[in-house]
């Protein structure tokens, strides 16, 4: 079922450490209660495609909030703000987890919320979403990891004060069902890393489904990029909507 009628706006939410953060929030209009989704943006930042993806989820029945993980860098175009964050070595995992928890609380406080909240992330946000499910297992009812790189860490340089732990080492904490979407031509995560992630989830007895797409690499949902793969993206979105509806209502 789709909801062509929706409302979308920028909102303020209570983020990590009590900071007041910016977010993009879209929700379907109409009667009834709706499940929620926290959308974790990709490394380039809180850009136009992220707002499109947020509205797409709302169109399919999910009150969706995309917290601006770089809001502390101040105003500016998404690419300039993202460049400053990259130059500073990215954002700290603990801060992202706090922001995601705050975004989930925002969703649950809405009058049209059904109380269940999933998390989805793209690119670095896929890794964040995986990590959020590990570190805040009681806040999220479903996880969709879209090609999150560095869930398995092979390069020691990827671990530092801001990102001290490989998410895969915390996977035992995950309580919710997991959907993973990956392109077989991706370099981060590559096929071997995806296989190793799946092996860990299987060994831990987690409720997971992984889908791997031939002819697709990184960011194949993003219609604004050369990486876009229409057929694989359509299938991936359909699987995402079905998964969230199954587990969130």
């Amino acid at each position: 079922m789709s909801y062509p009628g929706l409302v979308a706006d920028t909102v303020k939410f209570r983020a990590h450490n009590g900071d007041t953060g910016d977010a993009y929030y879209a929700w379907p209009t109409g009667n009834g209660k709706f499940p929620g989704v926290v959308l974790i943006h990709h490394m380039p930042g809180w850009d136009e495609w992220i707002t499109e993806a947020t509205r797409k989820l709302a169109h399919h029945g999910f009150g969706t909030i995309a917290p601006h993980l770089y809001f502390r860098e101040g105003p500016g175009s998404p690419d300039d703000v993202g460049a400053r964050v990259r130059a500073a070595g990215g954002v700290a995992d603990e801060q992202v987890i706090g922001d995601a928890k705050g975004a989930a609380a925002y969703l649950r406080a809405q009058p049209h919320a059904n109380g269940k909240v999933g998390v989805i992330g793209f690119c670095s946000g896929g890794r964040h979403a995986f990590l959020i499910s590990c570190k805040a297992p009681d806040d999220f009812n479903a996880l969709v990891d879209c090609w999150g790189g560095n869930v398995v860490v092979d390069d020691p340089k990827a671990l530092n004060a801001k990102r001290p732990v490989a998410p895969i080492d915390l996977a035992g904490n995950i309580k919710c069902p997991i959907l993973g979407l990956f392109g077989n031509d991706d370099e981060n995560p590559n096929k071997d890393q995806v296989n190793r992630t799946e092996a860990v989830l299987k060994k831990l007895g987690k409720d997971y489904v992984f889908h791997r797409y031939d002819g697709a690499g990184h960011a194949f949902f993003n219609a604004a990029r050369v990486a876009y793969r229409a057929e694989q993206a359509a299938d991936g979105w359909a699987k995402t909507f079905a998964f969230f509806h199954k587990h969130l209502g």
Partner: protein
Amino acid sequence: MCSYIVEKAGMIGTAKGPNSRWMRIDTANVYYDHPYEAQLDHALCVDFVCEADGGRERVAIEISRESALDLIEKIKSALASGDTSHAQAAQANMTCSLKGSREDIAALF
């Protein structure tokens, strides 16, 4: 590959920045990753910034790997050609606006 890995190069110079205004620069942040704007899967990206001034403004480029390698060669060629010309000028007792140590140039700012 969404790695946050950035190579930083210190430098002395200027770049034409926002609003067509010149800005001094002291750092180039260099990375090879998914670009923001260029329609390339991966790009060599350079953000020229001035960290001494807060680093909030930048002049950015996103170019293909082949373009970057070609640019490196052209920079080397330009420097070699310039060094030859300037050496000849020095021999002829001519002055050159680019003459001077790094400290001399830094003092201009």
